């Protein structure tokens, strides 16, 4: 691991100021960042520890939504009575990811900002446009069975690995980043993560140093909620595909560079299409790269079954 300096942040704006400096990074749970630092894929020269900031509260908002502090652990989120009762899709999504130990450490903000688990991103011996812009993408012609089928580019076919974010994306809401001046803005969850395009190294709409202080979920949409995930092991594995349904809203996971709100399927359903037809419409633009071709019918069936309310 490369050398760095370390500070424990005193307040959110101060943390954002410190993290805006070149080479600086925020650290909260650290379960992804420290792993990447050991591999020298992440090489921050300064760490700003925000894990002790008092931003871990979870409380209802006046309009019936839920404000989740960015430093709440994944466990605290999944077990919160409000989340279990009113946002089961979010609780189920969190519980479908990682292990008990990791969920106890990982934070809500950090979960959103975790990096892809693309094997080529993790392998410094292989070209990766995300790690080294312009180097090329080894996954295009490589082992790509985990990779994106929607919204990918010739520069990058990596996926966003979060389960939690997929559940949240189906519900909808916003994140609230603060900058070094202490100014907080509202950024729709659907605009937080970017598609790769020609700049896969730019993964979010956050400015350098901006610190997510909270996720504010919309009031739960009317109707049932569920989260379904397909993976290579029964537990403790990243998804091949996942789907979250919240009323008439749906999102897909492990299929794109960001949590994928299934707006095409939602519109089709609202227009009277069957779940099968709606899922087919959502997956119509999907593109496989060989190893991940199977994910297209897999995701289509998973989405159709979830929209029909089946336990796929």
């Amino acid at each position, binding site marked *: *691991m490369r*050398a*760095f*300096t*370390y500070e*424990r942040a005193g307040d959110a704006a101060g943390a954002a100021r410190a993290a805006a400096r070149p080479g600086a990074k925020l*650290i909260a*749970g*650290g*379960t992804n960042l*420290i*792993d990447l630092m*050991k591999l020298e894929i992440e090489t921050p020269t300064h*760490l700003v*520890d925000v*894990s002790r900031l008092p931003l871990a509260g979870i409380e209802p908002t006046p309009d019936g939504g839920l404000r989740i502090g960015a430093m709440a652990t994944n*466990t605290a989120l*999944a*077990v919160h009575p409000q989340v*279990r*009762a009113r946002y*089961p899709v979010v*609780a*189920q999504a969190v*519980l*479908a990811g*990682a*292990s*008990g*130990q*990791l969920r*106890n*450490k990982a934070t809500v903000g950090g979960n959103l900002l975790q990096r892809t688990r693309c094997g080529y991103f993790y392998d410094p011996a292989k070209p990766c446009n995300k790690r080294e812009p312009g180097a090329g993408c080894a996954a295009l012609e490589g082992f790509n069975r985990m990779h994106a089928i929607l919204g990918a580019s010739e520069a990058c076919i990596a996926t966003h690995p979060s389960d939690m974010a997929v559940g949240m994306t189906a519900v909808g809401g916003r994140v609230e980043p603060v900058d070094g001046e202490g100014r907080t803005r509202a950024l729709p969850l659907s605009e937080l993560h970017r598609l790769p395009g020609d700049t896969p190294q730019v993964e979010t709409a956050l400015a350098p140093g901006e610190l997510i202080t909270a996720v504010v979920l919309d009031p739960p949409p009317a109707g049932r909620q569920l989260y379904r995930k397909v993976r290579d092991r*029964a*537990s*403790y594995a990243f998804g091949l595909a996942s789907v979250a349904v919240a009323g008439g809203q749906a999102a897909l996971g492990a299929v794109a560079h960001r949590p994928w709100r299934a707006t095409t399927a939602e519109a089709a359903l609202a227009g009277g299409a069957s779940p099968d037809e709606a899922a087919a419409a959502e997956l119509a633009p999907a593109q496989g790269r060989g190893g991940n071709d199977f994910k297209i019918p897999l995701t289509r069936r998973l989405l159709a079954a979830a929209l029909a309310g089946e336990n796929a």
Partner: protein
Amino acid sequence: MQIRLTVNGEPRALEVDVRASLLDVLREGLALKGTKKGCDHGQCGACTVLVDGVRINSCLTLAVMHDGDAVTTIEGVGTPEALHPIQQAFLEQDAFQCGYCTPGQICSALGMLAEAAAGHPSHATADLLAPVELTEPEIRERMSGNLCRCSAYPQIVAAIRQAAEAA
């Protein structure tokens, strides 16, 4: 950097490299070799310890981030003369072969049992609002962060079940 930890009930003041994981500080700085380094990437669970009673992977956290925290390692669980009920259950159920993953399994089980007692649901819980019943599928799901390359899983599950039922 100077940090203070309470380890197995004893206050300790330490000078640590900011890069040092909590795992390396426990093993190398405090010579508590019971906590094991398996993968060092949060994938195997051999390094599981309890921080303020909560199980975490000690390999994926920096020691400096735990200034002021209370850490429990396997050395703080039971004694050779008076084993903790989980340790006794591991012996009675023959829940290991090589034993390398065992300290992590036991610390993880302690954390897991506390989570279950607090009513935390898991991926195996059908009803998120119902009381937790530690069935075999529940124990397997909740312990999935701890790998055993000898594959003593049936005995590990039996040992945890025995300890849970006795508690």
